[in-house]
């Protein structure tokens, strides 16, 4: 049920019109290396944005700045009205509303899957254990691994681990989900099960930013695709427009190499 008016106009929120995430002239330096060179981007409420581009183009850095895993040096980032700044309380506020899924899953190996999922709701949202466990089981059913609840991450396959990681992020009932190459560490036959979960999530109306190389997913699920190169946004458009009729040479080159 995507109530999306696809304008195809660059930088306009593609969802319901309300802006969820706003980046304005965001710059990030690692020493002398500039990783982000003035990023301007708005992501609409309920919009799914796929970020793609060659490695080293700053895709991961971009979404890691949104929940302050990386500190941006210039510019402004606003998530659902909260400005991401040095203030720890603002950072915690943003992180509570933002779920993140990592390339290497980063499940907590010393906790069972159920405890992985309930940890943050109990410790951050102060939910009673019973309620948190009920919600966790619902989420595990949603990602189709309820039978793995009492196992440890090491006992699961990569695809199952990534789905558990998605359930863990969803347990905080976030308004935004960030995916940092969620399928890059998976064996080919497990990629689909993770993408299916992500697609279902997008259809349910979650606001999502996905860094991914899965062009099929981008074409099929994304409202807009952002193409990045050398720390800047080269082109933003609907998947149809971007893949079928890229405007920039850099985009054409990239697409010719991966498609």
């Amino acid at each position, binding site marked *: 049920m995507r109530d999306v008016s696809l304008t195809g106009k660059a930088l306009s929120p593609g969802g319901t019109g309300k802006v969820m995430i706003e980046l304005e002239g965001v710059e990030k330096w690692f020493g002398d290396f500039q990783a982000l060179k003035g990023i301007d981007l708005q992501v609409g409420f309920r919009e799914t944005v796929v970020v793609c581009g060659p490695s080293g183009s700053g895709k991961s850095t971009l979404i890691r700045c949104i929940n302050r895993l990386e500190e941006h040096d210039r510019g402004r980032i606003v998530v659902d009205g909260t400005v991401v700044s040095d203030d720890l309380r603002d950072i915690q506020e943003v992180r509570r509303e933002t779920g993140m899924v990592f390339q290497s899953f980063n499940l907590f190996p010393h906790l069972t899957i159920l405890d992985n999922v309930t940890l*943050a709701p109990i410790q*951050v949202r102060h939910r009673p254990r019973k309620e948190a466990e009920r919600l966790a089981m619902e989420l595990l059913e949603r990602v189709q691994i309820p039978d793995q609840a009492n196992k440890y991450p090491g006992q699961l396959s990569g695809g199952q681990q990534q789905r558990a990681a998605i359930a863990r992020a969803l347990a905080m009932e976030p308004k935004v989900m960030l995916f940092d190459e969620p399928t890059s560490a998976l064996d080919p036959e497990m990629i689909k099960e993770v993408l299916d979960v992500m697609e279902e999530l997008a259809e349910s109306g979650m606001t999502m930013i996905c860094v991914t190389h899965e062009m099929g997913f981008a074409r099929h699920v994304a409202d807009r695709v952002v193409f990045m190169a050398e720390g800047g946004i080269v082109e933003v458009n609907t998947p149809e427009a971007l893949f079928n009729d890229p405007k920039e040479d850099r985009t054409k080159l990239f697409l010719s190499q991966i498609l």
Partner: protein
Amino acid sequence: MSAPTATPGPDTVATPPQRRTTPTRWLRRNLFSSPANALLTLITGPLLLWAIVAFGRFLFVTGRWDIIEVNLTNFMVGGFPRDQLARLWIAMAIMTIAVTVGAGVTSATAAEAAVAAGRDPSVTLRERVQRAGPPLVLLLVLVVFVRTPLPVALLAGVLLLGVVGFRLGRGIPPRWRGRTYLAAVLAIIVALIAISAFGGVPRDAWGGFLLTLYYTVGALLLSFPIGVALALGRRSSLPVVRAGCSIFIEFFRGSPLIALLFVGWLILPFFLPVGFPTPDLVTRALIIFVLFTSAYVAEIVRGGLQAIPRGQREAAQALGLSPWKQTRLVILPQALRSVIPALVGQAISLYKDTTLVLIIGQIELLAVAQNVTQQEAFIGQGYIVETLVFVSLIYWVGSYWMSRESQRLETRLGVGTR
């Protein structure tokens, strides 16, 4: 068509090939596999045999164990007033209950974890004997040397309490299990009160194995939290905290323990504020052990912290956990788990290092072994061999038991963690 008997048909279950080995084959494979190994066997075999026979002769024929028999109480408690021994038995009973309740809780948790993982939770008799073996051997040796029936009866009572405590621990419902460590701390305090309060025995009168245990357990329990705090402090983002922790750690790791004990003995009293009561020598030595050990614990834990992948911290951050909860719930449990072997190594080393207090005039176990040979009945007759063998057994049992338990802990915690 290849040999039809070689491939199992659909109805037969494939079994791994059986390896049969005869004694001759075993000998050839393990002892005479090459000329060099054969030579080694021919040299070390007789040597080993001779050592076993000589030691066995010493143990059962030539050894004069009367010195142990006469001085057993000295070995156990040193100069502890004999009319106050009841206090020690009470303390021992309290500690036994605390330890066995804890063991019961651990065993119940382990059994449940085994069931959850689909393994058989039952513990075989063989495993039980292997675990309890070393302490039981020591207990047996001690009982052999006891001359009066009362201590044996009391010991039996304590053992019985231990069994009751274990059963009790197993029956504690899961939601109260987290509290058992509080009970253990409480038990230690109560036990200490039972010994020294109400006109009891000051610590300077303690001795023998009692003193050894006090230093070991006390220094371990106190240095662990301090060490963890120092390790975290050394990785702090605040330069002042980082520098302070680094200086502390490097100072205590860079000083010989003996020198530090001398400091505690002779110099520490001068640094205390005027009017501040000087703690007794045992407490001063304990403080030195705590500071020294915590510096080593800090470095061990720091190693564990460094081994945790950065993604773990990031995942905890992304979930919105506060910095302290990221550390306490995600980073520390993994870091400590991975350094159990090194921590137990430190514990064993501390257990043996407590012998060093003999140079500041404390009569702990090793000092007793030396002192009793100076008694009129035994002086100048080389009894030191017997007493040293006896205390060696006590040190060995403690160290071996700790190392075995650490191995068990590793395998148990290792299940499904990676």
